[in-house]
């Protein structure tokens, strides 16, 4: 059984008449020690998914799911108290902007020790001295130079990379079994990004944590994850194991994301961007949500929402999934479609 098992997770905002579905029927299964990448553009519902599974979506947001279990315990049926004891200890999370995620009023040492006091071992909860030495040890583990001096620092006295290391130290302080990293390197310099990512992966391996890596950086995912979930406008559009999913994407969106990578483009040519933006509250198309931006879209795509289909290992939400050569299948034929459209009485 997977460590974290979620099926049919849906998050809606707004009233019943004007509901906005931020996360739509998302399934996620995470095995102990596994790395799952969640990719998609801004506004795809990646972060809301993470917050929802920690139970942190506030009114007026509503969360529902068919199944939501962690290590066999039902997250939906949990009391507020036991949920709070669980998150932060067994499930930890780090955020995109490390400097904003540290409380500006307290020192690094104080914040680390606070986490240990709340969720640490019984010994750590009792002894302040033990907490302090453990906090220092954690800072050394995340490779902060001159850790002893940094203990007394306030967040504004840290650089971005150092602040993210402190965040990681706080997250791993209580030996979590799942770490959710929400765009952990986006706000950092390119050189620091690689270091922080290396650190994260090394810690993941040492401790056997499961890692959910939320990012829009496909290169990062390609190097690290075992499975990938591609999200678009709150829906999963494709899931599958690496490297298959990137070698032979079945969904036009995955294909377009990969095509937009600079590595996959001719040096002189313009980057192949995906036209348009993720649909928001008021411009949700009928049919497939990608249809206005999809280069293969036919009438059927504009009319019917495709289901998430396929074997559990490799699901795709498309009427005409792509084949190994990147061509649409399932009877896709633009000329024929055009003929049909022309012959229809207008």
């Amino acid at each position, binding site marked *: 059984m997977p460590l974290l098992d979620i099926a049919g997770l849906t998050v809606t905002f707004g009233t019943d008449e004007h509901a906005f579905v931020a996360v739509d029927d998302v399934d996620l299964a995470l095995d102990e020690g596994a790395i799952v990448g969640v990719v998609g553009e801004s506004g795809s519902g990646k972060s809301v998914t993470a917050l929802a599974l920690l139970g942190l979506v506030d009114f007026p947001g509503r969360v529902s799911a068919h199944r939501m279990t962690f290590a066999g315990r039902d997250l939906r049926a949990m009391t507020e108290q036991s949920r709070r004891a669980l*998150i*932060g*200890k067994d499930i930890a*999370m780090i955020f995109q902007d490390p400097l904003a995620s*540290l409380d*500006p009023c307290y020192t690094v040492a104080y914040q680390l020790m606070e986490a240990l006091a709340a969720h640490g071992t019984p010994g750590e909860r009792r002894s302040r001295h033990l907490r302090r030495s453990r906090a220092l040890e954690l800072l050394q583990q995340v490779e902060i130079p001159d850790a002893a*001096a940094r203990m007394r620092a306030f967040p504004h006295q840290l*650089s971005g990379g150092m602040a993210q290391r402190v965040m990681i130290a706080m997250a791993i302080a209580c030996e979590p079994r799942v770490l959710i990293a929400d765009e952990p390197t986006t706000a950092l310099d390119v050189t620091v990004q690689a270091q922080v990512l290396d650190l994260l992966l090394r810690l993941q391996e040492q401790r056997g944590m499961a890692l959910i890596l939320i990012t829009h950086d496909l290169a990062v995912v390609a190097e690290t994850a075992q499975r990938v979930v591609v999200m678009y406008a709150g829906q999963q559009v494709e899931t599958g194991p690496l490297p298959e999913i990137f070698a032979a994407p079945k969904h036009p969106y995955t294909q377009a994301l990969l095509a937009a990578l600079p590595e996959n483009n001719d040096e002189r040519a313009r980057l192949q961007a995906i036209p348009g933006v993720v649909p928001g509250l008021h411009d949700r198309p009928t049919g497939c949500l990608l249809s206005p931006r999809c280069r293969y879209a036919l009438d059927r795509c504009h009319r019917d929402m495709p289901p998430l289909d396929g074997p559990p290992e490799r699901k795709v939400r498309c009427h005409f999934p792509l084949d190994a050569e990147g061509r649409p299948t399932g009877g896709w034929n633009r000329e024929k479609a055009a003929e049909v459209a022309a012959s229809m009485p207008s």
Partner: protein
Amino acid sequence: MADGAVRDVAASPIPGPWSELWRAYAQSRGALIGLFLVLALILLAIFADVVSPHPPNEQYREFTLTPPMWQQGGTPRFVLGTDPVGRDMLSRLIHGTRLSLVIGVISVAISLSLGIVLGLAAGFFRGLTETVIMRVMDVMLALPSLLLAIAVVAILGPGLANAMYAIAIVLLPHYVRLMRAAVIAESGREYVTSSRIAGAGTLRLMFATILPNCAAPLIVQATLGFSSAILDAAALGFLGLGAQPPTPEWGSMLASALEFIQRAPWVVTFPGLAILITVLAFNLMGDGLRDALDPRLKR
């Protein structure tokens, strides 16, 4: 940026929060003058019994309305002259400092603590709680502050303690509004979410996570509120609703000497000057603190 990189490598000692605050505060000359005056007033208040040459309520009947020592007819025995019943002005002013500071401390403390709790509740829970609290505060703000204070004193009865409660009530809406705005701004920040993810409960979020981050505007408002508390107390004393004679309160000293303004201007001038200097000192200090604490004004 180069500075930051060098510091990272060399790990020079990190400046503590107090030394950083002091450096920002000391940049303004006015703030330093304000701080100096406030410290002087506090010392005067503490050592009033030692410093003042006479007991504040001792009446020297043969010396009524003696002018200050540098005027004709003045005597070095009464440096700032005497009042209509022969009490030493300087001693009364010094003891008045003690009263004014106590009034400031108590009324600001009452309204600050109430204001923090109400503002936190309004900003954190939003919804009906917020509406009820803020509308009541709006009603209080709609009344002129002195009028409201007079109304409260009229209900509670005149006296120094009741004047302080009245002033606390008058000051309250400012703290509540300030606190609510700060809480709303802070609770959307990521560190609040990350604190929730670490498992913090509602009370802990409110008082340990959000409150300290709202402290800067509150400290500034409290310092400035101090001066308006002193001013309002003097006004209530002047109207006979605050401290009662023979208490050496500056406002009631003004009131009791009003009829002598033509014949003996010093009995009115010096209490007025004392009020002016105290209020100015606290305002200068408050401005300096705002410059030092407000991140928007930081370079």
